[in-house]
């Protein structure tokens, strides 16, 4: 099945960051080093395309830390498929997230 979105470098970076365990918006910004205004539109687009799934974190945890609930993102099965292509097309980027070195 054809991909509906362009697999650009920033998109690939966001997908790899989420796979590496950075699931919240600001965490993804920090992990990717992308300009702040870039990350959220990518997240929205990927979520609408079914590549990512957004959900609100557990209320008890947020309450215990006296803060509002954050929204986190995780890969769907479509996202896992897209990730295979990311690894194939951006091997150096994948190595950075795997080992911390290019």
């Amino acid at each position, binding site marked *: 099945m054809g991909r509906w979105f362009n697999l650009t470098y920033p998109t690939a970076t966001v997908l790899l960051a989420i796979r590496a365990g950075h699931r919240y918006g600001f965490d993804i910004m920090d992990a990717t080093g992308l*300009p702040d205004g870039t990350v*959220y539109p990518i997240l929205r687009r990927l979520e609408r395309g079914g590549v990512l799934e957004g959900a609100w974190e557990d209320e008890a945890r947020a309450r215990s830390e006296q803060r509002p609930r954050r929204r986190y993102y995780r890969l769907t099965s479509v996202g896992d498929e897209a990730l295979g292509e990311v690894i194939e097309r951006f091997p150096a980027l994948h190595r950075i997230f795997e080992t911390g070195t290019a």
Partner: protein
Amino acid sequence: MVPGSRIVRCAARLVPARRREEWRREWEAEAAYAWRLRGDGSRSRLDALRLRVRVLSCVIDALWERKETMTMTGLFNDARFAVRSLLRYPTFTVIAVTTLAPCPSRTPTDWCPCSTWGAKDATSFPCRTASFSCTRSR
């Protein structure tokens, strides 16, 4: 008050109403978490400024949401597609415009619609009444 919350509230006005509440909650939660990480005692003015700068990116996100909603609207999408197609195929554009443009005839009542019969794919085309009579008489 968490730095940047006012920016989020202002930017939320740009977000389409059906998405606004959730969008605002997400950004406020991120800002609150980031502010909490700084620790109560060690927060400086510079930290507050940094957080505000980061939160400013929510304006781009809000504009993106707005644009996306407009794009999803069928009419806007159709118009955009039509313009793109016409620009991509100029020959087709010329043919379409000359075919569909209003008839320059001074007596539009001279024109009548004609159709082909018998064939599998019946077609309809405009024809001058005089030409039709001439063709029919053959």
